[in-house]
């Protein structure tokens, strides 16, 4: 099944392929004051929850078969941020995960590697060393993940520490308390500060949509994060239920689509948490394809924050190749 890898862009994760965000001209004045920013965010078109849910339900009926399925499985594997975010994480666990990231299926070397390994900042160095020059990125969560309840100085130090340890990507959390209290400019300023602390590292901004609750809030937070310079907007920490849901992902994809149309700057999207099956991944890819469009169908612009998803993708990939299902012992635990 050598044909399954042809879709992957070999430069997909190289630094040279990265687009640096351009200044967001049409909106440069909306953050001039709290009132102006609030007026802007509240002036975004509302989201009708019933309509958003029925749209994703309809897209959920798309039937992805044969060649399209093979392409989608490989693409999904290449978009995985293979994640471990536990208090019990050890260097051994991270090294084991890094090995899995490089070679997800030891039985089929044509299987593409994943996009990144995602760990806490203190283990970024271990991941960096284990991944070497594989091209797989090290992503580190920072800014007092997952609650974000710490002073800004602590959050910035957390980011700098992770970058110093070798993180290519920083997954920050927004201050949901400030957002829900209506202090949008505080949230914005913090993202700007974190972005600066990132240096050349990519910044993913976690909205924690399970705590923002309404789709109107998701749209406002998405715009806020994009205007502040986030390279990616990410749904969740994975520590709060519900984590990534399809309606939330729909609204975020609409936001990046509209943002590019109006600023020329393309922002990535990362649903994280709760995506466990190949079918879940297929539904997300269909959503990307028919909402933001095929330009987002690459690891540059779309990621899955997941741990168990990868093994289900591998099992489905084996099924397509061999014609029969195997079982959990035919893929590795890490």
């Amino acid at each position, binding site marked *: 099944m050598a044909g399954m890898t042809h879709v992957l862009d070999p430069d997909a994760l190289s630094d040279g392929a990265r687009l640096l965000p351009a200044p967001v001209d049409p909106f440069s004045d909306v953050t001039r004051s709290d009132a102006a920013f609030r007026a802007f965010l509240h002036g975004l078109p509302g989201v009708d929850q019933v309509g958003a849910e*029925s*749209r994703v339900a309809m897209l959920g009926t798309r039937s992805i078969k044969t060649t399209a399925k093979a392409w989608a499985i490989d693409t999904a594997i290449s978009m995985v941020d293979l994640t471990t975010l536990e208090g019990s994480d050890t260097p051994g666990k991270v090294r084991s995960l890094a090995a899995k990231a490089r070679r997800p299926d030891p039985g089929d070397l044509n299987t593409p590697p994943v996009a990144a390994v995602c760990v806490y900042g203190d283990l970024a160095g271990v991941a960096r060393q284990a991944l070497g020059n594989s091209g797989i990125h090290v992503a580190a969560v920072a800014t007092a993940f997952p609650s974000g309840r710490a002073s800004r100085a602590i959050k910035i130090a957390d980011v700098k520490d992770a970058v110093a340890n070798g993180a290519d990507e920083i997954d920050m959390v927004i201050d949901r308390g400030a957002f829900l209290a209506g202090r949008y400019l505080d949230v914005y300023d913090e993202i700007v500060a974190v972005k600066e602390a990132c240096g050349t590292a990519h910044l993913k901004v976690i909205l924690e949509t399970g705590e923002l609750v309404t789709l109107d809030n998701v749209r406002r937070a998405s715009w806020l994060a994009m205007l502040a310079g986030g390279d990616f907007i990410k749904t969740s920490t994975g520590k709060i239920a519900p984590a990534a849901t399809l309606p939330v992902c729909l609204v975020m994809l609409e936001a990046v689509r509209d943002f590019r149309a*109006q600023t020329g700057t393309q922002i990535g999207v990362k649903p994280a948490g709760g995506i466990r099956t190949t079918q879940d991944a297929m539904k997300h890819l269909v959503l990307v394809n028919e909402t933001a469009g*095929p330009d987002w169908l690459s690891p540059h612009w779309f990621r899955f924050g997941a741990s168990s998803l990868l093994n289900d993708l591998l099992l489905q990939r084996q099924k397509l190749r061999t014609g029969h299902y195997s079982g959990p012992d035919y893929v590795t635990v890490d």
Partner: protein
Amino acid sequence: MTTAPPSPAKPNLFEYAPAPESRSIVDIKPSYGLFIDGEFVDGTGEAFKTVNPATEEVLTEVSSGSVADVDRAVAAARRAFTRVWGPMRPADRGKYLFRIARLLQERAREFAVLESLDNGKPIRESRDVDIPLAAAHFFYHAGWADKLDFAGLGPNPRPLGVAGQVIPWNFPMLMLAWKVAPALATGNTVVLKPAETTPLTALLFAEICQQADLPPGVVNIVTGAGETGRAVVEHGDVDKVAFTGSTEVGKSIARAVAGTRKSLTLELGGKAANIVFDDAPIDQAVEGIVQGIFFNQGHVCCAGSRLLVQENIHDEVIASLQRRIGTLRVGDPLDKNTDIGAINSAEQLARIRELSDIGEAEGAVRWQPECVLPDRGFWFPPTVFTDVSPAHRIARDEVFGPVLSVLTFRTPDEAVAKANNTTYGLSAGIWTEKGSRILKIANQLRAGVVWANTFNKFDPTSPFGGYKQSGYGREGGRHGLTGYLKGATHS
């Protein structure tokens, strides 16, 4: 906000592979007779062919009911009404309806595939909308059968007798359910004439009636063209006429029935306004516009064929709409990923083409996405006309196809005036995040159904019907029962 021009088209990496629903589940016989008095019999009229509009393949040959055949069908229905169905305990009538509903669910895939083959609609719609809703109508009305005394329709509502029902080709099985379920639940018997181009699911329904052991004569199905329909409508022993179809035919039926004892309900054409205010949830409104006009290829009497968009968001909405229409998948109705199927007949395709050409000739601007249409069969791409004025024919005439006319308004009053400026009055849509505006505007619209922040949503509990030339009477809900009952008074 302004919108940047869309980026140049790139090849789509994620091209969905064909995902066809298998047609092996249906067993189409080489020819079909009429279903009279519980049996299939040959019609005495000239047989006609029904084709798959997606391929022009002849599916089968179907008997045509003559005046004599209709007479036999009405006589069977009268016997069944007098001897069996009328006197039956209402709870037992309910049992038959529940049985039919369950059988429809059990054989849903068969019905869906057959409907898509004969009608041309996408399997996604026949599978997810037409057939489940048809079953839901039988379930809903089954529940009413033994509760009519308590429906608030008067102390002792009685059935009318024999109902002659003529249904259209756009939702063949669903329209059958809208007609047959309330008639049977209220104790009437029926003679139903399906549309000439889509008789097959009605004939499969006849098999369901046999399978359910429905007493002979309670449901009779007489296939044929306009002449057969006329014979049903004009038959002297029919007590009730129910018709769904064009306003032109509806008018001739009203004339034929005038002066007789027959009661009549008509569900006719429409030219619905779908009103989008500047505070609407734009992404969902765009979905609703698409759903409103491209659902079932626009072959929908309540289609949102006139988009009334507030002028200050016109460009933004049209840009979003065009981008969204670009993602619609037109093609094989049996492919599970198809969004828009085939036009039902060559005749309808000719009408859509004619009205679209007139639209252009009168000065409206036609827009169609790039899309490759199959070589054979009847196809028309999704189409949007902008710069439409209320005087243009595409703003006034029912196209009954995937053709949207876009008009603008400046104020709520102007929106209402333009929305009501039609000889029809079947449905309308309102898109705004402001609840108070929804309530105010809905009260001012002269349309039987008003959807708010959604469109083309149907439910058996909700009455459906029109104002003005969209017809009279209601179908569905408690209101729909009155059309089949004597002495029913609404409270």
